């Protein structure tokens, strides 16, 4: 959805605007009118085990934010929508189907001088039913599956920066080292940085341009079994969104363990190039 569209539909019934950022206090400095804040780490991840929250916790999260199973959730955030794509992907893990992303994210909205407020909205509590399952098998890949993908020479898309892919650095440019012991990439992975999919203002490229990159350039077919990964799964959520929602690919999984798992795993095979 565009900033223009959202500006005209801020108070649409049965929708909820959700801001998800890397900057943990950014929402508090001002946000879209009516937007609630869902933090990718505090709200969506288990506080102890490296995993997502349980279906019951997800139902509680939605309920206290006034989200029902039929609510259309409109995500936006900072950093070119990395974390909002991550939150959207997490919502899909729990089977929530009505989701959209604000094209260009928070920065575009602010640059256009559109309305922001510090007022935190209160919505009536809903009774979100506890999802019967988490769709890990459908849209999430674990280490063993990424390894199998590599061995079977099925498409693996590394969306990190070229320096990370080549093993020249073990962290994202401008970010601290987060304890990864080895640099490089999963054998057989192809480097297609997430940024390839967006213009300078962080809006998504056109469908024709995206097809030229992923379909023609990478040879990916719409029904290919594809696994995308990055460092912890946020940038690859962005690519997962592009492939799934903008190009209509049917079997894309996000390996959220990504390089912080692979690059530390004893005897995990690594390529450098």
């Amino acid at each position, binding site marked *: 959805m565009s900033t223009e569209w959202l500006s005209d539909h801020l108070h649409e019934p049965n929708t909820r605007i959700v801001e998800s950022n890397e*900057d*943990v*206090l950014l929402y508090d*400095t001002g946000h879209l009118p009516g937007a609630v804040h869902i*933090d990718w780490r505090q709200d969506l991840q288990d506080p102890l085990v490296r995993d997502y929250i349980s279906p019951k916790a997800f139902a509680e999260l939605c309920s206290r934010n006034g989200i029902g199973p039929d609510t259309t959730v409109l995500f936006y955030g900072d950093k070119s929508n990395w974390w909002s794509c991550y939150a959207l992907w997490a919502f899909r893990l729990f089977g929530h189907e009505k989701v959209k992303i604000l094209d260009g994210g928070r920065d575009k909205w602010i640059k256009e001088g559109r309305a922001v407020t510090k007022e935190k909205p209160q919505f009536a509590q809903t009774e979100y039913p506890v999802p019967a399952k988490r769709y890990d098998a459908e849209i999430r890949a674990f280490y063993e599956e990424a390894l199998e993908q590599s061995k079977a020479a099925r498409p693996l898309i590394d969306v990190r920066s070229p320096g990370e892919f080549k093993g020249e650095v073990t*962290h994202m440019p*401008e970010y*601290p080292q*987060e304890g990864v012991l080895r640099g490089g990439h999963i054998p057989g992975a192809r480097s297609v940085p997430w940024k390839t999919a967006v213009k300078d203002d962080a809006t998504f490229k056109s469908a024709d341009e995206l097809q030229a990159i992923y379909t023609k350039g990478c040879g990916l077919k719409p029904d290919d079994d594809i696994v995308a990964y990055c460092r912890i799964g946020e940038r690859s959520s962005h690519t997962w969104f592009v492939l799934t929602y903008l190009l209509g690919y049917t079997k894309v999984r996000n390996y959220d363990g990504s390089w912080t798992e692979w690059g530390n795993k004893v005897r995990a095979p690594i390529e450098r190039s």
Partner: protein
Amino acid sequence: MDKSCNEPPEPPDPPSVYPPKLAAIIGLFESLPEEEKRENLVAYSEQSRRQEPKEGEKFDLEDVRKDEECTDTVGVFLRVDAENRAHFRITLGPQVQTLTKAMTSILCKGLEGATLGEIMELPADFVPRIVGGHLVRIRSHTVYYILTRMKSACKVLLNRQRAERA
């Protein structure tokens, strides 16, 4: 027997290891519930532009650089007065995160007039007391950066002073 008779008197509070202005800010934040703590951090972040150098100010050290630990360029400007007390100014690039902006205002105010030695000896354990343990846990890499840069500037000046004395 009255048990309290055998107990030694409470020792007086040890002197604060923090400069008085910083100790006051720490005390304020520690008294706040989580939501008000966030509101105060945002309020401090909104004052970060006020910490920039003013026209005509001169500094003993200017350290402007972009590190991998921070999302944008940070400039640390340090002036030391005749009593060897530090006066900081800091510039932040537009991509710097809100917590870093807040810590910039807090530290510029809290360390105003502290000696270089006091700043170098300053333990970092006050940061979670201001920011809250929860925010430190979920975004630990952003909260210590400005303090590290300020200490780094002090160290350079102290080394320079030692070299001049030698």
